[in-house]
């Protein structure tokens, strides 16, 4: 756990070590979904950029109107502070209006931005959507090759896809272990492992996760007196929210967070054409408010997942000013109620500094359960 914690505490040191070890650089990955495998295949480190929960907005207060999400706001603030100047490039996906605008505001002292668009008509026009996604990814690859002065071979991309799929499998196994060893693995530790995934080269992350799993499995199954929950939303940050969950006896049995399990839910399928394989992964991906599906299967998926992992309730972490999540919630709530699934929605804004209200709500919810 200490290795994971150190990685999160100092991403700059992780980047420096990577540079020293490989002689290659780092490419920033903006939220939410990105074919990171292409960056990895270039030998560069894909580094997740989700802003910082502990930053106060001073330099860029005027950059956004008041109704922007704090992820976008804190990324802009960090950009103004020069936090991203050492990156070789950044890759933007634009699955919501805020991210579209963020991609157009980017101006980090000459660090080039590569923007791509995910297709959303993934059911009625599956083939055309797949072809579009493949071409967008091909352009991302071409631009990376030109910017980073590298050549990304088909074999290298296939190897990176394999490394990423192994990492996804390891993370899914870890998530399962969190449900099993609820008395041992705290919510904040679980989050640390997932957060470190954004800063580490994936085969190194997989090795560390497997090492941790071995250590966990060596322990006897602990007796857990608390309640298991499923958390859903964009992210659970700031970390104080996780501490509040711990104080109230909650363990996270599974998650449906954009920053965590939605990244590892869907493997990249096998295909002779690795770019097409990456495109097919997006076409198959579901249950996220950023991936259009008029059948809205997310509630059913959450209910099934909660049952599978023995979760007593679902906690929806609702970021402020996040349209995709806010549009989904009324339907989630209705289906939870119809199914008798207990749920709570808490506003978990990364910029929050006062946690009394969240604490009271979670404590009350724990008592009700």
């Amino acid at each position: 756990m200490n290795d994971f914690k150190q990685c999160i505490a100092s991403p700059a040191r992780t980047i420096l070590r990577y540079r020293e070890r490989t002689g290659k650089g780092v490419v920033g990955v903006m939220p939410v979904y990105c074919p990171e495998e292409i960056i990895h295949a270039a030998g560069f480190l894909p580094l997740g950029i989700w802003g910082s929960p502990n930053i106060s907005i001073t330099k860029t207060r005027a950059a956004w109107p008041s109704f922007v999400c704090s992820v976008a706001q804190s990324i802009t603030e960090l950009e103004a502070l020069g936090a991203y100047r050492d990156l070789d490039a950044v890759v933007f996906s634009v699955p919501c209006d805020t991210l579209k605008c963020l991609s157009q505001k980017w101006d980090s002292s000459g660090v080039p931005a590569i923007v791509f668009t995910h297709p959303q008509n993934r059911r009625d026009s599956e083939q055309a959507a797949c072809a579009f996604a493949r071409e967008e990814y091909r352009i991302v690859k071409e631009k990376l090759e030109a910017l980073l002065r590298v050549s990304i071979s088909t074999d290298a991309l296939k190897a990176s896809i394999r490394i990423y799929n192994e990492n996804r499998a390891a993370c899914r196994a870890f998530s399962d272990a969190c449900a099993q060893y609820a008395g041992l693995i705290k919510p904040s530790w679980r989050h640390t492992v997932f957060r470190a995934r954004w800063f580490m080269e994936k085969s190194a992350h997989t090795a560390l996760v497997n090492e941790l799993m071995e250590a966990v499995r060596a322990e006897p199954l602990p007796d857990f007196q608390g309640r298991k929950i499923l958390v859903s939303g964009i992210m659970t940050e700031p970390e104080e929210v996780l501490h509040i969950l711990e104080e109230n006896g909650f363990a996270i049995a599974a998650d449906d967070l954009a920053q965590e399990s939605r990244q590892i839910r869907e493997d990249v399928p096998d295909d002779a054409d690795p770019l097409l394989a990456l495109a097919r992964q997006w076409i198959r991906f579901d249950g996220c408010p950023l991936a259009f599906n008029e059948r809205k299967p997310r509630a059913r998926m959450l209910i099934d997942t909660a049952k599978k992992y023995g979760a007593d309730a679902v906690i929806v972490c609702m970021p402020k000013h996040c349209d995709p999540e806010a549009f989904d919630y009324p339907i989630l709530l209705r289906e939870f109620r119809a199914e008798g699934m207990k749920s709570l929605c808490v506003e978990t804004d990364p910029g929050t500094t006062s946690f009394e209200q969240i604490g009271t709500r979670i404590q009350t919810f724990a008592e009700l359960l």
Partner: protein
Amino acid sequence: MKINVGESSAEEVLDYYLHQIEEEAGSAHKEGRLVCWSAALAPAEFCEAMDVSVVYPEIHAAVFASGKGNTGLLEAAARKGYGRGLCSCARNSIGFMEMLKQRTAFGSAPEALQESGAARVSLPDFVFVCNNICDAVLKWYEALARELAIPCIILDVPYNHTMPVSRHNKEYLAAQFLDVVKKLERICKKPFDYEKFYQAQVQTQRTVYQWKRVAALAFRKPSPLNGFDLFKYMEIVVMCRPKMAGEIVLRKFADELEADAAGGRFAYGEAGEEKYRVTWEGNAVWPFFNLTGRTFKETGSLLAGAGVPGMWNITYIPGDLASMAEAYSSIYLNCGAPYRYEELCRIVESSQSEGIVFHIDHSCKIASFLHREGAEYVQDRNGVPFTYFDGDQADPEVFTGAQFENRLRELTEKMEIRKS
């Protein structure tokens, strides 16, 4: 009721056709026609070819909000969990849907529905969403389809992070057009009428031609057209693009304006009353439409250019799907910088505007989040001063008249200094 177009004013012709469309939408089910609720910039040509009655929730939001009749609808949406923070047009239509459901269930129109003034509209048989203006519409129509358990046709228009529109983007759109046809055939249970589709494309181009003719009249100095009227007539270009009614109304309006200009009659009466020419960037503040127009007039500011009405300048070659795809994709809000800012520069320059008013619309992130960059881009180019104000396209709670007036007066001072 019939109308003699030759002897009536453009406004009378407009009212006549809008009334007729509402009547048609209200009686569609009785006549065995399907009803579709559609995004305002979805290609209406497809539904026109299948004789589907199309209702536009964005227009409802504008009409209800400008008549102060949507508070009950916003409350109904909030009771369902769609609270403030989400697009007010979406909340308006979700509230409206809920009221219509209650009317169907209980047999009488709830009070909020009566207040809205559109009690005759039917619930949709399917919805048609197109995200060439924003991605919020995807979530909005996804919710409508799920709430009503009806089919949803989607035309996904990818964000143009580079311009011109890429070949693979146009190919994706053209392929989707064919899938829209297949889905419509399944929903309507009849074959697609390709000849009618072609005629709808031709008619759309004829309507758009008249729409551009009207908008260009505001570029004249002095102008016979008050740009607020452009927002008012937007209703017809949204609802009647593929119908002859759209062309008739807009031609009549353009002819009237031409005659006014020739006769020395301008938007504010005498030519000298037009003291400043201003571009409006963003949607109208529909709940305070008259107040904002009045404030413009009081300060001698003429609304000469606007970006939003120009989104309906959809120009393509009938029969050419790639050309149609490019037209529906090139909506400026669907394009990244610098194209989007260049478009604003073009409007400011064409309209000979001396200042820009940016509406920070709390319901529209895609429009509002890049105002600052757009303003700086235009100012760097030609030094035009600008101002911002807070508002909302369909929620009356955000806008304050005092802030708007102060900001506009501040802008007129800047324009005056620049003139001198």
